[in-house]
């Protein structure tokens, strides 16, 4: 009698993976509370909070007014006083309104108090474009990477959304956890067993010998699409999913590029002072002769106009073009 091996994972929507992580962590740790706009009965703009208020009540799942500065400040203060809050800032563009408590207080509290105060806070937010225009599309991860005292993670798969959210909710913090609007409706296998993805570890999503593509969040999918298409013309790509932007896992990147000799970074945000630029610098400290190119948004706002949005942000064609140019320029 043939029997299927027992399932060890289950397919979940990305948003469901977040819900699962939140549910488990809230069940395990009464100090975890959630603050956000429309995260209660409504369940969040991307449905990632559905059901939590029913299970944990309105003392632990708090609908806030539209007041991002106070939302972040409340989370910071509550964390500093011993809770482990998650503050949901629906759009990263509006995290700008809360940078004062995040950067000027949370990221510095432990240092400035000589260790008396820590801030075990998670700020969950959403980057990237999906037809919503100039103030709902920005990616400011690179700003946050540059702030001493902050950790930054950005999953691209349901399993990592689950595992990184859990890690973030156990971290002494503060951690900024970044979703992408286009990811919530994607699906992926998530381990049935409780699985934490440690902050600071990249993942290799695909292997190939000719070039390393480094990306995070939605751009990992663009990178994989590019890699697949390049395979048909005989170009093999390592695709590295950063998962964690601060700290960066330079070891995984360096190992890959040591083998491939070339790296293309792909990000949806700006190239200038961006994620790829930083990785390129650090990489070259180990591998002086690596060939490197970076792909990112055009230096312009992202219009909600579908044609202009598409023209602004990277797609597989642009990644492929950059790789062909990079590899070609070497062989030439």
């Amino acid at each position, binding site marked *: 009698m043939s029997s299927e091996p027992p399932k060890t994972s289950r397919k979940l929507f990305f948003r469901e993976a977040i819900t699962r992580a939140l549910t488990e962590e809230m069940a395990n740790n009464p100090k975890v509370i959630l603050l956000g706009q429309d995260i209660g009965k*409504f369940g969040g703009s991307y449905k990632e909070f559905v059901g939590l208020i029913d299970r944990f009540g309105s003392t632990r799942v708090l609908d806030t007014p*539209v007041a991002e500065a106070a939302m972040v400040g409340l989370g910071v203060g509550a964390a500093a006083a011993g809770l482990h809050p998650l503050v949901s800032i629906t759009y990263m563009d509006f995290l700008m309104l809360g940078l004062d408590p995040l950067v000027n207080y949370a990221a510095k509290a432990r240092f400035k108090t000589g260790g008396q105060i820590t801030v075990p806070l998670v700020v969950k937010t959403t980057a990237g474009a999906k037809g919503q*225009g100039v103030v709902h599309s920005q990616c400011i991860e690179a700003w946050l990477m540059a702030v001493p005292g902050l950790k930054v993670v950005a999953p691209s798969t349901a399993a990592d959304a689950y595992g990184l959210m859990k890690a973030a909710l156990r971290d002494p913090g503060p951690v900024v956890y970044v979703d992408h609007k286009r990811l919530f409706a994607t699906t992926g296998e998530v381990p049935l067993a409780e699985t934490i993805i440690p902050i600071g570890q990249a993942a290799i999503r695909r292997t190939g010998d000719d070039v390393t593509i480094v990306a995070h969040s939605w751009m990992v999918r663009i990178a994989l699409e590019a890699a697949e298409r390049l395979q048909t013309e005989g170009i093999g790509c390592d695709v590295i999913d950063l998962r964690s932007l601060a700290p960066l896992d330079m070891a995984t990147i360096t190992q890959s590029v040591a083998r491939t000799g070339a790296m293309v970074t792909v990000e949806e945000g700006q190239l200038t002072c961006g994620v790829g630029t930083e990785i390129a610098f650090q990489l070259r400290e180990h591998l002086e002769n690596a060939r490197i190119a970076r792909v990112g948004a055009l230096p312009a706002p992202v219009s909600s*106009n579908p044609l202009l949005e598409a023209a602004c942000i990277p797609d597989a064609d642009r990644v492929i073009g950059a790789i062909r140019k990079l590899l070609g320029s070497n062989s030439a």
Partner: protein
Amino acid sequence: MPNPDSDIFRPLRAMMLIRAFEKALVSRADHGFQLLSSGEEAVAVGLCDAMGPDDQLLSSGRSIGPALARGITADQVMAELLGKATGPNRGKGGRGHIAQPDIGFFGAHAVVGGNLTIAAGVALAMKVEQRPGVVVCLFGDGACGSGALHETLNIAAIWQLPLVLVCNNNQLSVSTARGTALAPARLSDLAIPFGLPGATVDGMDVVAVRDAAREFIEAARRGKGPAMLECLSERFFSHSTATRDTRSAAELSEIHARCPIERLAHGLSPAIRAALQAEVDAEVAAALTKADNAPWPDLAEALSDVL
């Protein structure tokens, strides 16, 4: 046949245009989600009826009603919302960002509360240069939780800026009931500590909105400084065409029964209603056709007008 210049005719037609426009627009779901003003027409129309040619209106992202009421043509609003190059923003701003300062619509801005300090700055420019205009900033109840309102009220008060703050209180911010998000009993009370006049009116009554707005706008024009007007309104549809509604069918039918158009049109002959309806429907249909036939922006626009 009513006099086209009569008090009721013009606002009625303006409100019907907004309603017809949105009805036509949502038939085109391929153009992404939209933020509809249906139910709230009396706020936009009453307010704009009180504004003069030198004045500037700034609005929140929910801007179809305000843009049309202020006089951007249906052709242009439609073109902008469908992303066409013939829109006033050349199809680059779209939903939430439509603007035409040269006719007095300084623009929508999709950051909740984000236009408040900008509006104060526009008012400051008017004051410094002694221009005749008054600035009106229209925002939702959601924006009343934001610190920008406080900073704006205070500065507008100390500098006596020609600024009228108008809260379109549709009692919801996405799914969040105004009562659970905002402590004040009346949102216009927020003006009181700053020594500014505040008033709350029925935002389903276009005449009440217009009269209250006119008083504040004319006072500001005479150098009497800023004020805050709250208009209690109802949002007929969900937050956006891509958002689920959280209200029950019963609630919604009660809300729809408060229709500002029906209220104003009450007593008007069916024939006149029908004629007006035909007129605005034709205007909207023409706008849709023109927008459909209009060109998309050139891809080079993705990088133009940045620096």
